[in-house]
């Protein structure tokens, strides 16, 4: 909770300073852009957080997003009458399939997730490129209903952002209130103890990878709806931003602690920095440096907090004895 509060505070501070510098930063259009800009990263960060909580990582999300976005475009090219619901389901299904491939490789080959998803990052992207074969899908080819979803708002909130909020709330509730959700934390906290307490470790990690894949698929559909123009390079390199958002959001990289809310706030903070720095007339070079510094600060804070808690608990015991 403390960590989520800290990130929230940093976010408020950033928005406040930027708005004082340039009041237009918070007008209706700009607010909408901020939310839209964060949407895809939030969806990916929620999936990544679940994976990282189990002491794994999914580096293939960018490629899965690209594949799913392009598939959505292809689907509409082939059948422009496809209902939006079906397109969303198709994207999610494709992502789920990719996640299942990742999960199966980890479970069957007993190879660390880092290596498996580094491999599938290239494999999925390769499939994407060879399928696209240089083709670009233009916004004009997309049905207008789908494009409208990319810009429509409900009570001032973009529809796409509502997807992200729904995903976040569901994931947060699941991790908090369901046995399998708590077991994800247990696995990340101590995999060996998890095995001894009869938790199906392999199966849960598989599930986490599948969820991450499905959410990356959803992010692909959202990407298609937002940008309209698609080629095979969509989402290239976004995986590192996602991992950064999760770490900044207070999810321990060695698993076991943190929340999807924190990860979502981390994603919101990173994307807001991206929009705020140009307004503040700061060199784009610094944007990367700021993100890097944030990651280091988050990790440093994590260490310091852990050490302090351990010290305090030990001290309490020493006095009590």
């Amino acid at each position, binding site marked *: 909770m403390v960590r989520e509060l800290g990130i929230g505070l940093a976010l408020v501070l950033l928005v406040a300073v930027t708005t004082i510098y340039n009041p237009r930063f918070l007008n209706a259009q700009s607010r909408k852009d901020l939310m839209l800009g964060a949407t895809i990263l939030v969806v990916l960060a929620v999936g990544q957080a679940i994976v990282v909580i189990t002491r794994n990582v999914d580096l293939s999300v960018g490629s899965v997003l690209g594949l799913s976005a392009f598939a959505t475009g292809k689907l509409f090219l082939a059948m422009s009458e496809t209902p939006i619901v079906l397109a969303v389901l198709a994207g999610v299904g494709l992502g789920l399939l990719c996640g299942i491939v990742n999960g199966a490789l980890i479970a069957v080959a007993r190879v660390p997730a880092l290596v498996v998803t580094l491999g599938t990052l290239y494999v999925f992207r390769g499939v994407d490129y060879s399928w696209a074969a240089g083709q670009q899908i233009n916004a004009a080819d997309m049905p207008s209903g789908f494009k409208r979803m990319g810009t429509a708002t409900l009570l001032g909130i973009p529809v796409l952002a509502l997807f992200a909020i729904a995903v976040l709330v569901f994931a947060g509730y699941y991790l908090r209130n*369901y046995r399998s959700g*708590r077991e994800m*934390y*247990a696995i990340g*906290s101590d995999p060996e*103890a998890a095995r*001894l*307490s009869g938790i199906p470790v392999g199966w849960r990690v598989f599930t986490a990878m599948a969820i991450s894949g499905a959410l990356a698929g959803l992010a692909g559909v959202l990407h298609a709806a937002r940008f309209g123009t698609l080629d095979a390079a969509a989402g290239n390199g976004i995986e590192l931003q996602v991992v950064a958002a999760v770490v900044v959001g207070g999810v321990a990289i060695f698993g076991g602690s943190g929340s999807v809310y924190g990860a979502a706030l981390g994603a919101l903070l990173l994307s807001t920095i991206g929009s705020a720095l140009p307004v503040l007339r700061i060199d784009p070079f610094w944007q990367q440096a700021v993100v890097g510094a944030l990651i280091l600060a988050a990790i440093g804070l994590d260490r310091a907090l852990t050490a302090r*808690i351990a010290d305090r*608990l030990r001290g309490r015991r020493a006095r009590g004895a």
Partner: protein
Amino acid sequence: MPEQPSNGATLLALSGVSKSFGAVRALVDGQLELRAGEVHALVGENGAGKSTLVKILAGVHSPDGGVLTLDGEPSTFTGPADARGAGIAVIYQEPTLFPDLSVTENIFMGRQPLRGLRRIDAASMRRRTAELFARLGVHLDPDRPARGLSIADQQLVEIAKALSFDARVLVMDEPTAALSGVEVERLFAVVRSLRESGAAILFISHRFDEVFALCQRITVMRDGRWVSTDRVEDLDVGQVVRRMVGREISQLYPKQQTQAGDVALEVRDLTRQGVFENVSFTLRRGEIVALAGLVGAGRSEVVRAVFGVDRYDSGEILVDGVRLPRGKPAAAISAGVALVPEDRRQQGLVMELSIERNATLPRRWSLARLGLLGPRVEREDAFGWTQRLQVKAGALSDPVSTLSGGNQQKVVLAKWLSTSPKVLIVDEPTRGIDVGTKAEVHRLMSQLAADGVAVLMVSSELPEVLGMADRVLVMHEGRLVEEIARERADEESVMLAATGQSSGGAA
């Protein structure tokens, strides 16, 4: 077999159970019969196969051979969840908690009480935790994280976990090793009430007073085999010890008489906050000094600090009167200190590398010519040492992981002996090694001491400590509480000091 007074039915039984890990035969012939309403003791030396047997009961390992019967029906457990479903609760020697999660969540992980839509009922979970703690008489905050709990508190959480689902069979692997007198009494009261309610309890302990006070029958194991099962009334401590060891201790530990020489190592007021405090001792040439104590007393941490692998907050370490810099293993090695670590797979060897390369690793610079290390130099050098220590290996170029545990340990010893150390520190030198190799390792240590090396040995095996050491230093909760000379050292004096019940110990 005599009739039981409790006349309990057999709940769980093992017969002819075996289990091997690679070339190591951890269990050859395991037998056990747990009856309702009975506390059954399982005793044996370290490495006798008790923990392997426990893991088979827990469903962690599936046996290679033999039969497990549950309520008279032959059964197999496919995993820990299976065993738990059958009503078997296991408290392991080393607590297995999730440090990031709350105490409550640790107790109910995987079995949380549910409300509508299969959601976790956090309120009732918390209430039940409070009830369990009240029943155990423990004062712990149910919401605090498990990280930072003392070993005794962790053990209590494990016990609460076992109580939380009304287990029919409760297996406790040395549950009292880290508990104080009051906590042990409380645990025993709980165990007795469980027994009266008809549970079968397996109790593993090295403390014979507890075994005789609590248990109705005793099973003795040695070298992975069942030796005997008898009623407590028909046994005394002496008989049990003889069956455990199977031979006279004097034969097993070929200690040579040596003359202690100059001080080789001096440790003054070594302190690391929260781990060990004001540890001071000296070690003379030709001496074997044992550092005894319970698991978690801080022994390994002290020797690791001496060697410079772990940091320490204050105090100093002198080798031959020269102060060692802090946290520099390279300096310790060049001053003539060698450490054979506790965990040879993780810390003692590079498992994928060849035997010869492992054996020459600390001297890779001195063996090199013009900065290049040729394979022939390594091989010739390693050959000499492996011959001397009688390492049984196929080829020296084989990965060290192909060797048996005992031979791996000899390679670790070869590696450090080749540096001609003045001070040799061995941490659990014979853990997980078969009896024959054990004796060889002991003979070697004795020989080294006779040659004037100062040997500091950390060991949890009392017979080893008593058989090998000229002096026994006993640690309890991070403090050096007692120094016992060889003549006065016996199981009782060491165990009393280690559990903090001697003159200086805390209540």
